[in-house]
């Protein structure tokens, strides 16, 4: 025996444990149903799987008619906001291990927007509010030829938090004020207004403050913090709304 050899083959890696998870999904097919109904699915899942993986498994292996939006599947595009166990979250950022799988996991569409089919809502009212706050840079100054508009690190930091919004509507559709009549601008529109109101390169803050100083503007906010809790990007939404209120009272950003 000159060379050392392995006496035994390496022990086979223990198989990763999987669990049977029950999902209760609120289905609605406008061609058949008059009312939404709850349907349950049993899915074999790993702890590191996401709710979105469960929806994929259901759609691909059990019921192809299940309808939901998703695009990037990595928490950036904001397509798959839904109400999971009563909380608004992104299905692609919610891991099975973070949910209590001893009970069924409830999945339904976000509230306050018209339900179109299964987990899909009509996002148009949400985007209409977004468009109304002029969510784009309006600058009257002209930068030096060949140069950008310079902004200090401190000036950038003022609105850093609200640049993170992905327009998933988790905040707006968690807001009890928005649920009632949907007239309120909603947290997301205010967040995106905040992003430009406090941008030192932008010259149109006054217009946006006037728009939000409306009957259905920031004053309808009840500071319930549902939006801050719902935001999958961790934006302090209620704080941003409060800063817009302060700016309106000051009359300038």
């Amino acid at each position, binding site marked *: 025996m000159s060379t050392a050899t392995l006496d035994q083959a390496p022990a086979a890696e223990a198989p990763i444990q999987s669990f049977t998870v029950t999902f209760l999904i609120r289905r609605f097919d406008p061609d058949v149903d008059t009312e939404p109904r709850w349907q349950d699915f049993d899915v074999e899942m790993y702890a590191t799987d996401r709710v979105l993986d469960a929806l994929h498994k259901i759609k691909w292996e059990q019921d192809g008619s299940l309808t939901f939006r998703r695009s990037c599947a990595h928490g950036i595009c904001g397509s798959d906001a839904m109400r999971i166990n009563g909380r608004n979250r992104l299905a692609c950022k919610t891991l099975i291990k973070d949910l209590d799988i001893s009970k069924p996991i409830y999945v339904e569409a976000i509230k306050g927007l018209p339900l179109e089919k299964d987990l899909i809502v009509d996002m148009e009212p949400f985007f209409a509010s977004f*468009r*109304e706050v*002029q969510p784009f840079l309006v600058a009257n100054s002209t930068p030096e030829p060949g140069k950008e508009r310079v902004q200090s690190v401190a000036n950038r930091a003022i609105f850093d938090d609200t640049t993170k919004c992905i327009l998933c509507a988790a905040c707006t559709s968690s807001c*009890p*004020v928005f649920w*009632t*009549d949907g007239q309120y601008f909603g947290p997301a529109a205010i967040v995106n207004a905040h992003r430009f109101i406090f941008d030192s390169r932008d010259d149109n803050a006054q*217009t946006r403050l*006037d*728009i939000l*100083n*409306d*009957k*259905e*503007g920031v*004053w*309808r906010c*009840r500071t319930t913090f549902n939006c801050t809790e719902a935001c999958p990007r961790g934006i302090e939404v209620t704080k941003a709304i409060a800063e817009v*209120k302060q700016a*309106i*009272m000051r009359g300038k950003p």
Partner: protein
Amino acid sequence: MTAIEFPGEPRRRGSNLEKWGWIYMRASGVVLLVLIFGHLFMNLMVGDGIQAIDFGFVGGKWADPFWQWWDVLMLWLALIHGANGMRTLVNDYTNPGTVQKVLKGALFAAAAVLIILGTLVVFTFEPCPAGAPADLLPSFCAA
């Protein structure tokens, strides 16, 4: 594919009374904290405490302009604060329409009646009604 039209001037839907409503709630809330706890302290804790409260005690307080104004201020601030809070609840839980108008009208009427009656009582209160037993009246009522 057409570009989004540049939105011109913002829509101005009515005045921005909502802003003043919001500021009122904050400001009156702070003042009410002082007024209400001062009221509770004076009525329930100073001297004999709650046992001291009778017709004479109330009559004696309302003979003093300081307590008249204290109570009237508390009445106005609290009722408007409460009615405005109820109005926001109505806004949050009902859709625009007849029901909402009726509820808001009822709130306004209730607050207005209570404010007017309360103010009237505080300023026209007669602490020494004629023919009342002297032991029930404030001490300054000369027999």
